[in-house]
């Protein structure tokens, strides 16, 4: 085998390529196995600002909220993306004092057993539930647990809305935030958006 001079550019190229490949293999090995492609496409602050304003278009919002708006942020424990986004959502919601003049309380809730989740929902009765990332497999179960409940569910993973599991989605379209509303899911969860909002949204009937 021909020896390469360490000062030679060719030697450095080969060395760098080997280093890159080694690094890539190492990263694949050390990264959590459950990492999933579910990063949001809209900055979290913007998501929260939109929800605070869109809520006013839900005819049942005031009745549902009563004396306080309870925001639930649903997180999948052990999913790094889910936890990261949930923490950012919680921080953003803590900067919001009122929605429609009603004081806001925010709580992060870990999603585990569907029955326990349903039980806790009945106990707390949140006004808005924001799903963090990491619900690709569980979104349908969450929706089933909430069947008949009066609740605005929101996500920044539009696939959950397209699949009919969440009422309101916040997606990115042409480099701008955009709304997606699943009308059937909205009806099941007693969410009644005014036509003015539906004109601004992509509506799935």
């Amino acid at each position, binding site marked *: 085998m021909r020896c390469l001079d360490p000062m030679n*550019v060719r030697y*450095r*190229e080969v060395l*760098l*390529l080997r280093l*890159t490949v080694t*690094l*890539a293999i190492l*990263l*694949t090995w050390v*990264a*959590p196995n459950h*990492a*999933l*492609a*579910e*990063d*949001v*496409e*809209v*900055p*979290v*602050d*913007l998501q929260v*600002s*939109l929800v605070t*304003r*869109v809520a*006013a*278009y839900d005819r049942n919002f005031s009745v549902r909220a009563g004396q306080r708006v309870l925001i639930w942020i649903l997180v999948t424990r052990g*999913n*790094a*993306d889910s*936890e*990261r986004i949930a*923490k*950012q959502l*919680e*921080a*953003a919601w803590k*900067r919001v004092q009122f929605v429609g003049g009603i004081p806001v309380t925010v709580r992060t809730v870990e999603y585990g057993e569907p029955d326990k989740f349903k039980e806790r929902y009945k106990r707390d009765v949140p006004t808005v539930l924001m799903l963090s990332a990491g619900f*690709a497999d569980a979104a349908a179960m969450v929706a089933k647990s909430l069947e008949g409940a009066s609740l605005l569910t929101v996500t920044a993973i*539009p*696939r959950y809305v*397209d699949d009919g599991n969440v009422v309101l989605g916040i997606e*990115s*379209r*042409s*480099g*701008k*935030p*955009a*709304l997606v509303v699943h009308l059937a899911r909205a009806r099941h969860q007693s969410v009644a958006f005014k036509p*003015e*909002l539906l*004109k*601004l949204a992509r509506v799935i009937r």
Partner: protein
Amino acid sequence: MTRYCAMVLAAMVTIAPKQIFAEEAADVADLLSESIVSTPSKGLESASHAAATVSSISAEDLRRYGIRSLDEALNFLTQSVVVTDPTHAKESGARGVLLTGDYNNHFLVLLNGHALNEAWNSTAYVDAGLGVPFELIDHIEVTLGPGSVMYGSEAMLGVINVVTRKANAYSGVSTVTELGLSVPIDRAGNLAFEESFGRTGRFGLGYGRTQKLFGKPAELVLAFEWRSGLRPAFELGPQDVIDPATGRPKNFGARAMPGRWGGWIHQARQERVPSAFAQLTVGDFSLWLRSAEYFRQSLIIDSTVMSYGDFDDPRNFERDRWFNLDARQRFALGHGATLVARGFADIYAYRWTNASSASGDCPAGMARGCSQLLTSHSNTYGGEVKATVDWTEDGTVVTLIGSEVRLRRADSRLEYLGGSVDNQYQKHDVVEAVYAEQKFVPRAEFEMNLGARLDHYPGFGTALSPRASAGAAVWRGGRWRTIYSTAFRAPTFYELNYRDAIQIQNPHLGPEKVWSIESSLEQKLGAQKLSFGVYYSRWERLIQYATLPELERAQAVSDGRIAPGTEVAYEYRNTASMTSLGVESRLDGSIAPRLTYGVSGTLARSRVDLGDGSTPLPLTVMPSAYGNARLAYELPNDLPVIALATRFEARRYADRNFDGGFTNGARVAPRLDVKLTLTGPVANVRGLGYRIGTGYSFARVGPYVVGPNLYATDGSSRPEFSPVERLYAFVGLEFAPDQ
């Protein structure tokens, strides 16, 4: 300037919301109009909070305003950018600076964050030669000002990032077919309907699909586009020329009279751009490929592409070919940390041919003329790793660090067919870079961003590119931002290695550098958004074609680097500098639910110092005042959207104004272009839409001197300017039943 500002403010007050919408509707619409950008910091953020001035052009605007290529998008829809047509590949400038003949290597052009500027000459195209299927574009982010802090070389004027659509917005099979006509132009700039019309055609085919693969969400996007066409016939000349080598009338080939260049151009006006793109995303892994070709015949003799050659000869052309690959894997590491590893490859080939029947254009012994062929290739292979850490896990203290390695290889060869080979070389190097950025958002009303990037090139050493920005909410709806930013451009393989009979090679060139300071105020009033900014930039060590001093010329002759007897010799040198000071403003919004508008304008004062002791001069080609305005109205039901777009450029100097030797200089009149487009759905056919448009330019000529007499031959010489496509129309159908 005061009057200009007053007019903008008056317009703002006039259309301020007068309870046109309900307040909440305006609030939601206001939020939905906020651009989300990823270019300034390599991560998603609101444009208002970014560490750079960035505007975003949406696919919807591209469609409704009848935009068919990137240059149209930049001219009609964004602020402070101008793209001009030298009749070969188009040239771009921003904020009062355009460096003609640079093949856009002072703008960094990205595709999904991947640099498209190739390695040999850092060339990128901002016209149809972008080589990306146009319907695939989701939006275009245009970042103004120096941007090397994240991307390294070339980002001196700014960064243009073309972002493609994801499969959920491109689902199913879609097609587009578009045809266009443009009217021939005679030598006075008049429309000449009896001559050969320009004809363009565009066909695109796309497919997008989402599904689960290996238990993970997956997306597939495929797109192909074929663009082809003929420019309209142009009449040029006549220009009389004597061949200095023979003392006889110069021979311009079979399509011109001996000694007389000019007439109608019918043959050398073909363009062709096929392009293809494929992207596969599975879970956190994403891979895309792009392949394209840009072929165009050299229309006329000019200062950049064809400084001599036969008239209207289809053998004179340029052709670029690309293949790009980008693969990236994202890792969520927990505790607010994410990591992205990226590998990429870029393969590029360039070919230029030039035929001349004049012996004076050819080496000795080629009395019947010659053909030249320049072939160049470049390959880049590289990797990048970047990590983002959100220390407080609430977005208030976020650190980005990254490193990048590029292995670059370039070769070039200039050949006289049947004769000598010149300027042949093969080079390679390794470029390494590290970068970091720290964001602080201590309160929702205030943010700060500090960043720097260090690039190392084996040729000249290191280049440090820092950036600092601060922004704050100053009152309700008002946001102030100040940015200091820097950039550099590494000398290209072409510049480092070029040599010929009268130019010596300079392998010791250093990087060009620019720094800029800017401050802006953005005010939102419901659905209206006004921004006003001032900027100052200083450019240093610009590479230019410089005359060799007497002693150095004599030395170069004695050691054989240039031919004996050469009286004037040249070299690329880092000698020029430049300043630009200006104001820019932009107003966008809607004044009724169906009526949207946008206006932008820039006033700039730029001066270039050639470093030879002469007085600094204004820049040529680039106007000192320019802007655009647009208005779109959505008619109800299935009736069309009517969209009118205009652009304006003030009177400006042509490229040979200062050095052409023309007694009265070379200046061109102001330019005003208008474009009207109707778009809408075809009734009763789901997914079928149409687009019909026409455009007209009031300008008769462009700011480039053309023809063999680029320089005055005597006191009575008058410059001949590049032609302009003045009137065109197009019609298109698109079918996308699942989108």
